[in-house]
């Protein structure tokens, strides 16, 4: 938490603002991934297990990206029928036609799984709240728009009639701010804003600046918690624009050249990242994980964080190595 406030710390922390569920945790507590998304008790148990098992310094819920869209009225597929595979929830059908205005329900905070998620945060607070920070996340306006309308159409209309999209994104910024407040009220210590639909692999830095940045900045300014802006994919050309959005910290993935980002943003910027969640954490050896942590710290991250959600089938020894290596290499005093 001190890191997010820009205060001095003794050591670089090892935590995340994104999902942190592991197969190890699921096995230990005998919880099926497909059934956890609507069960507050189990979700809290799993979210806390990554701290309890490995000393990972946070507990984060939820695990999927459908909370806001569901509260707005989308139907979600949890893949309960799929037996032997971990599939992340997705949205069944798009809520509105691309370019169409949305209607924000009066009782947004009472809809979908928001009350359930508030309950999860409450459980986490009671369980481990005195030991680690409790995190939760919301989507950025552009990414949320991609969840509730056809993405291809959204991308095209963004080009052809940006004013229409701008109006929708402004409404979505309001949705996001309200959801974030509900999460804060439930006890979340920090909030991550995930704008993963807008990296430079998908849209141009130009469009990021003209269309994505204004509503994103608006949403962030209205979130009254310590807050992290996360974008995965290629963020090198947009880190400065990300910094202008006003979050307390930026989180980036392995495609980001952190040393370069540090140069661009200066000493005071709080940069979190950028351990490859699959190729290093899942596929790599313990030594690979240690080396990645060491490199990330040397390049200048203020917190060691996986580039995106922890990938559930991460081996136990790699999770341990992630935490241990951060302690070993992360002394700042």
């Amino acid at each position, binding site marked *: 938490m001190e890191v997010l406030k820009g205060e001095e710390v003794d050591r670089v922390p090892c935590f995340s603002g994104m999902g942190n569920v592991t197969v190890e945790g699921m096995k230990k507590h005998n919880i099926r991934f497909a059934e956890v998304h609507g069960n507050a008790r189990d979700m809290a148990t799993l979210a806390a297990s990554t701290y309890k098992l490995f000393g990972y310094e946070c507990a984060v819920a939820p695990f999927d990206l459908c909370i806001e869209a569901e509260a707005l009225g989308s139907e979600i597929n949890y*893949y309960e029928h799929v037996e032997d*595979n971990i599939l*992340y929830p*997705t949205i069944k059908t798009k809520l509105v036609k691309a370019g169409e205005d949305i209607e924000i329900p009066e009782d947004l905070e009472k809809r979908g799984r928001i009350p359930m998620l508030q309950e999860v945060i409450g459980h986490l607070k009671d369980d481990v709240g005195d030991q680690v920070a409790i995190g939760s996340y919301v989507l950025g306006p552009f990414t949320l728009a991609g969840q509730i309308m056809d993405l291809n159409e959204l991308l*095209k209309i963004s080009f052809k009639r940006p004013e229409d999209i701008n109006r929708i994104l402004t409404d979505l910024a309001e949705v996001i701010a309200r959801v974030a407040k509900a999460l804060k009220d439930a006890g979340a210590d920090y909030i991550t804003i995930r704008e993963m639909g807008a990296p430079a692999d998908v*849209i141009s830095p130009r469009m990021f600046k003209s269309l994505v940045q204004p509503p994103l900045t608006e949403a962030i300014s209205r979130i009254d918690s310590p807050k992290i802006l996360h974008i995965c994919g290629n963020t090198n050309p947009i880190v400065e624009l990300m910094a202008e959005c006003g979050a307390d910290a930026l989180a980036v993935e392995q495609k980001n050249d952190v040393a370069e980002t540090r140069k661009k943003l200066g000493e005071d910027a709080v940069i979190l990242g950028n351990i490859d969640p*699959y190729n290093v954490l899942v596929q790599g050896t313990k030594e690979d994980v240690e080396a990645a942590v060491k490199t990330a710290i040397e390049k200048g991250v203020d917190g060691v964080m996986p580039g995106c959600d922890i990938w559930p089938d991460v081996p136990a020894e790699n999770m341990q190595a992630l935490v241990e290596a951060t302690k070993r290499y992360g002394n700042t005093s």
Partner: protein
Amino acid sequence: MADDGRKKELIETLKKGVIEYDEDLVKETAQKYLDEGFDANEGIFDGLAAGMEVVGDLFAKSEYFVPEVLMSADALYAGLDILKPHVKTKDRDQKVKGEVVIGTVEGDVHDIGKNIVKLMFDVAGFTVHDLGKDVPLDRFVEEQMKTDSDLVCLSAMMTTTMVGMKKVIEKIKAKNPNVKILIGGAPVSKDIADKWGADGYGEDASNALTEAIRMVSALREMKQKGEV
């Protein structure tokens, strides 16, 4: 010949219309091109498809991004709608490169990359059956049988959904060992493609196309030799 110069001019305009994602310009030019009696097939390949190739390059160089590519695609399809009905049958038989089933596997909604690959196939003259995203694994098998496609293309962007590809490959190969299967998406690699018995792997969209053409030609050759 003045005619030839005029044809060239119109073909260049078609190309430019695609590159600059100017749907109206493409529509108008395609109509003029037909009205003046030029060959539809050349208009498609030297104009529209050539333009899309340039767009593919610009995307690879990060000068164009996904929205630009999608808009160029709209311009291309608008032109195709006008020109395609006028392609002479003999050209049509020659030029159809093959039939492809494509989709993103179950549990995965990442379809931006798949859509770009699909577009490249359309451009090259394949007949494409797009199943979309989050496609139940058996749908691939069914669609291949229904359309008797030469090629099945599977996309996955997550390591968990990627394993679904392995199942699809097994199922299709069990029913019809001659169908070629091409896989791709960020977590996929050449190694994985080999291990799971896919016939090919494509790192990006243009790569995917080269692979596809290679595989379908091999298949045709086998058919001609009567091995199939």
